[in-house]
């Protein structure tokens, strides 16, 4: 296990690379999720407002 982490002396370089790769993946997983949540929230709110207006219009 120690040898594995040690990476033949290149530990810093190898693990920094993989960590950065992980960060890129995480950031790019989070972005679309946030965009989706945002859009759905906005659209649902709009829909609710529309329905409320329709109801208030019908006598």
């Amino acid at each position, binding site marked *: 296990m120690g040898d594995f982490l040690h*990476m033949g002396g*290149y530990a810093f370089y190898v693990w920094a690379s*993989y960590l950065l790769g992980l960060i890129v993946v995480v950031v790019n997983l989070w972005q679309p999720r946030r965009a989706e949540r945002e859009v759905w929230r906005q659209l649902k709110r709009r829909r609710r407002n529309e329905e409320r207006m329709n109801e208030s219009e019908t006598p």
Partner: protein
Amino acid sequence: MWAWLHRLGSPKRFYGWSGALARWAGWGSLLLGVAGLYYALFASPPDYQQGESVRIMYVHVPAAWLSMFIYMNIAFASLISLVWRMKVADMFAAASAPIGAWFTFLALVTGSLWGKPMWGTWWIWDARLTSELILLFLYLGYIGLLSAIEERDTAARAAAVLALVGVVNIPIIHYSVEWWSTLHQGATVTKFEKPSIAWTMLRPLLLMALASTLFYIMVALRLARAELLRREADSTWVRELIDGHQGGGNR
């Protein structure tokens, strides 16, 4: 003749098939990514000369490949957008840019991290790193132009022209940098440019490359779909979609 393309690219249709594609791409990327990491970190041998640092290649090379692949996608989508006036192509291009820039950045930094133990310096002006740096500027310029123009359709079309001009220039830039690099590098090692072709090393490389590609497809499609919903908010199909999900659920 192009009716099928228009049908495929109509917002509603696109939303339909892209969802399934994104999901498949996501799971595929996860599976291949886990397999790739296993082979990259455990089940592949260290290099004869570079030792364990060769494992950086399994992050660096896929990132570099993807940085180019994504730009090609942006250019292709830009062409479709300008020729067939497809909004969906615009959105896919815009959605691809940030992740493309991220992969370019990843390629540059891992290139440095790979180079430091090998060449002794954090940065070296070799052909690949220099080309990647210029590619990063191309991405940032594209993203900058998209965000600088307020009117969304104008921004998309201007960015499309920029992407096409960029893609024409990329071979010219690559060739120039190659020529410049061979002129000034002399004895600098260029063997790192070509990855080892031993199957034990090719396997993790291909797995990581495929995993990253599928990951990109998933991310770009999801971002494009979110933008599509926002822009088509007034249409009937979006309204029906929302109604179908009122009171909870996502997607």
